[in-house]
């Protein structure tokens, strides 16, 4: 079967984990890995795995985009360079999946709004943050039943799974996730809290989601909606697991989740990184399926 050919920008942990996930996909094929350091371990590993590589940044990839028929690119670099990367690749008709906090395109949480983005043939979609991917489906599962006045999420991450970029820019993580809880989750007000825990052995990512509904919550319908949503996420993140809840206290609904990774390149405890790469892959697959069916066509953005 024909596959859509992809480029990965950024040869760090996220980029490397993406190779594994994309290689397993029935509709995607990883072709290029883009880095900036010729000596980098990530580029060497990509070469071993059969990918073409460049250490010349996105400019090193551009001359090969058309001849290699690259149609989807994943950006796992930083918010600072993403806009430029996206502009250059969009101009060649390459659809961009943004795993940085840049968020220049619409925010995407696959079981909530991916369909809508694919139908509109968005040329740049943003994957928000790990905490966003892990919690917004639950907020949405509540808000699609009853209006949610306030939603709050607490993400606990293993210290070893949080890279220097996130650490140095923790406020951006907070702002991006809080805003997405509102825009995609459907809560009128959103708040995100992050805790980095250094315990050894590293703790598996945990997330607690609390929603305050305007009216008394319908326990049966909300519980059913949450369980159905967990099933949707499990299709691309098998380690997405309900630990406790939903529990109800007045107008408060609380759900306690755990996210274990697949352990492809990243260790299992780093469910926070895995849910990003899995959601990005799922997003690319939806676009790829539509391209292969001929229902959408990517066009250069001029």
């Amino acid at each position: 079967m024909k596959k859509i050919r992809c480029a990965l920008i950024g040869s760090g942990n996220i980029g490397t984990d993406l190779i594994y996930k994309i290689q397993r996909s029935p509709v995607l094929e990883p072709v290029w890995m883009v880095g900036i350091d010729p000596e980098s371990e990530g580029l060497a590993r990509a070469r071993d795995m059969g990918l073409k590589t460049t250490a010349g940044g996105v400019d090193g990839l551009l001359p090969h985009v058309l001849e290699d028929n690259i149609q989807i690119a994943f950006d796992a670099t930083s918010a600072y360079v993403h806009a430029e990367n996206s502009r250059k690749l969009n101009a060649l008709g390459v659809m961009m999946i943004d795993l940085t906090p840049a968020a220049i395109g619409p925010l995407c949480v696959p079981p909530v709004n991916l369909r809508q983005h694919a139908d509109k043939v968005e040329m740049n979609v943003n994957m928000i943050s790990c905490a966003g991917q892990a919690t917004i489906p639950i907020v949405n599962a509540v808000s699609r039943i009853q209006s949610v006045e306030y939603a709050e999420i607490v993400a606990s991450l293993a210290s070893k799974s949080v890279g220097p970029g996130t650490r140095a820019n923790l406020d951006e993580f907070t702002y991006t996730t809080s805003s997405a809880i509102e825009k995609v989750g459907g809560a009128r007000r959103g708040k995100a809290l992050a805790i980095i825990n250094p315990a050894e052995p590293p703790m598996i990512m945990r997330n607690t989601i609390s929603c305050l509904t305007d009216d008394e919550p319908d326990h049966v319908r909300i519980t059913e909606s949450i369980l159905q949503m967990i099933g949707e996420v499990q299709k691309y993140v098998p380690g997405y697991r309900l630990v406790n809840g939903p529990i109800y206290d007045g107008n408060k609904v609380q759900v306690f989740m755990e996210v274990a990774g697949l352990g492809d390149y990243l260790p299992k405890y780093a469910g926070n990184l895995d849910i990003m790469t899995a959601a990005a892959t799922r997003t690319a697959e939806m676009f790829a399926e539509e391209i292969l069916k001929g229902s959408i066509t990517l066009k250069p953005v001029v």
Partner: protein
Amino acid sequence: MDLKGKKVILHDMCLRDGMHAKREQISVEQMVKVATALDDAGVPYIQVTHGGGLGGNSLQHGFALASNEEYISAVAPKMKQAKVSVLLIPGLGTMKELQSAYDCGARSVHVATHCTEADTSPQHIAFARKLGMDTTGFLMMAHLNDAAGIARQGKLMESYGAQTVYVTDSAGYMLPDDVKARIGALRAVLKPETEIGFHGHHNLGMGIANSIAAIEAGATRIDGSVAGLGAGAGNTPLEVFAAVCERMGIETGVDLFKIMDVAEDIIVPMMDHMVRVDRESLTLGFAGVYSTFLLHAKRAGDRFGVSARDILVELGRKKMIGGQEDMIMDTAMTMAKERGLL
């Protein structure tokens, strides 16, 4: 050791750490009353925020009676000599909230991280300095990192711009030798002009002894709270500490009798429960658990029929840290399930 003539800066925590012990229910009027009395007693720094600091108002940490802005702007203009400080834990509070606290009159900040995660604070420390605030890097749960590790983390905070680095015994677990080792290691690596502070909890009754040990090892700033109004068994009781300092000839600039009156006449009548070493707060100190977990564990224990002590010990075993209050309910539910109660 002779500490005669040493100068130490006291920092009161009643109106921040004490918020934990009051389930965040201190009114603006009470804040003003307490702060005014502390100011009059000569306490140079008074921390005023939600117990979780800036951004603390949440389902996770409880909603206070007023916003941080309301508290700070009510207290700050009334101060004759004291500076109002705030707590900022990155991941919970943000720079926007720090700017807002500054605009309301806050002039000092504890930027707090877990004792191994100092590198989550560079933006916030640099921003506090840019605002011209007295800026502290605050290493919480310091018993979970050894002396060399604390020294490395403190050095990072100093490199971001922190003027003071604190060893924070959030669990009230440390003994005087633990304090001395960590403060001594910091003193050996930090610039001479960088100050060192100690923030104790009284869960093992060691608040005073640990604070004196800290001064012996080079600390010049000590946090406490009048009558010990703080999380767990409370902070180092500040009026007791002031009396000990006076006996030892350590200079604090605080009027001992006045601060004793604040404790007895204002703070103790405000308490919802006697803040003291009881079975649960002793468990915190013994098991090395974050002091703020105390009341959450009692509530979760009551709801699910599991003893608060069992929950606290399990949280210690799972190495939960400050900010993970949601895991208290989660742990209580899991324990209740295992015991066939849920």
